[in-house]
């Protein structure tokens, strides 16, 4: 089972609305459920080993971030009663609460984005953007970036090795290494400028810049997107609930 990209986008919207409008007491279980869902449910599971690694690395980062934020704010934000004492340090309830609110909000915002992107190939996302009407030039930039991202690390290594072989001070003091940074970057930028010019000409020679803009076809398929309507409805419900709650205070 695959969930279409527009539906996943509506899920991200729902998660963001919850992150900004609902309290941490709701969002923390939401995060835990999302993490479990993303690990087990195919439509949301990371599709490549590197995506899976990035996902779990982020979960580790979020946990550390949350702990640090709660502790720091518990210590520095002296609001509410003292919850905890450790040697000369007092930890305040208000500070803990603030730390939890901020960390849970950030983690929910970020996790929803990460789950969205890691559950699909970026090329497929770019093609979806094209069908949604994003200008061809911008889609081409995205796809070409993916192409360069495959090649640039190797090229950097080659230039680095070549410069080291020519005597660049890559292992000397800070200033010398700073100079080496320039020595590595310079040929890289030069070769890339040459490549950009050649590639630009080659694209032109194939009539690439004479292309007609692709008509957006996204709206024609919307009737089949059940999850889209589910998440949009839930988002609307949360917004209305928050407004009513705020008015009744």
């Amino acid at each position, binding site marked *: 089972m695959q969930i279409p990209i527009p539906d996943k986008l509506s899920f991200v919207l729902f998660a963001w609305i919850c992150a900004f409008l609902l309290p941490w007491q709701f969002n923390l279980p939401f995060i835990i459920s999302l993490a479990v869902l993303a690990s087990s449910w195919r439509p949301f599971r990371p599709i490549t080993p590197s995506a899976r690694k990035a996902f779990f690395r982020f979960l580790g980062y979020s946990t550390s971030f949350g702990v640090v934020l709660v502790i720091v704010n518990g210590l520095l934000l002296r609001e509410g009663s003292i919850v905890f004492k450790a040697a000369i340090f007092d930890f305040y309830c208000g500070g803990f609460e603030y730390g939890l609110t901020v960390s849970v909000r950030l983690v929910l915002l970020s996790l929803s984005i990460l789950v969205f992107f890691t559950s699909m190939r970026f*090329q497929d996302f770019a093609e979806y953007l094209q069908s949604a009407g994003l200008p061809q030039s911008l889609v081409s930039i995205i796809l070409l970036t993916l192409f*360069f991202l495959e*090649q640039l690390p190797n090229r950097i290594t080659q230039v680095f090795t070549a410069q080291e072989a020519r005597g660049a001070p890559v292992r000397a003091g800070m200033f010398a290494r700073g100079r080496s940074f320039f020595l590595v970057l310079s040929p890289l930028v030069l070769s890339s400028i040459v490549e950009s010019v*050649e590639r630009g*000409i080659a*694209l032109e*020679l194939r*009539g690439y810049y004479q*292309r007609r803009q692709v008509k957006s076809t996204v709206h024609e398929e919307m009737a089949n997107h059940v999850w889209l309507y589910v998440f949009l409805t839930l988002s609307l419900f949360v917004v209305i609930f928050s407004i009513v709650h705020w008015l009744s205070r």
Partner: protein
Amino acid sequence: MALPVTISDFSFQYWKDAPFALKDITLSVRPGTICALLGPTNAGKSTLLQALAGILGEHHRQAIASGTVKIGEDTFSPIPRNVLFPTVGLTLQDPYYQISGIRERVWKEVGLTLEAYSLTESEIESRVKTLLERLGLHHLSERKPSTLSGGELQRVALANILIAQPQVLLLDEPCHSLDGTSQRRLASILCSLQGSTTVIVADYQLDFALRVAEQFVVVDTGRIAFNGDRSQFLTNLHTFRSLLPVDVLEQALTNNAVVALSQRLIKNMAKK
């Protein structure tokens, strides 16, 4: 349908006070002819091809040019100011840059050219696969373009242009980084275009030129040193020793002649 190309008194400088890249070029290529543009490095071959394709006019607005270029019924004085694709197609020296990097499969890469036209995806796929079969590339259609060898890349780059059926095809050093087998394959592809497309091939490899071309133009420091047919070119070959790798060709011809003679002898012996 192939178009004739006529260049009259064409001169070109990249900027004011620059040395002439091309001087007083007068050349006529009949429709459907394969013309070899020969000469050493920096002779002006690439400049001439880029001028015909419209790239020079597009990117060198500060250049100074004079004369006229006529492609089919269209006359440009002095050069086209915009790229003339698909009427005129040009392949560059380095095939690596001609792979867009935007498409993940060879057939989609070639099909990228047709995306500018109002064709459905299935029409594009059908046209591309027909062309790939003709060029001997059908077994590579699902491969990633960045994994191809130099010879395969060169043919895919050619396919990128041929898919639009240009009436004039310009090739800038197509044999660059090609082995003998790939060169022969390319030569047979170009020969198959004879009559239907006007082809101008710029290269320094004489044996390749002799394999494909009917008209030979030798360029030296921006001027035409020779313009004639195959027999005239071969008769005058010795005069180009300083410009072209004639001795390499002679050695190749000698080797080929020896091989051909040996094969004839073996055949005669078998008959007896």
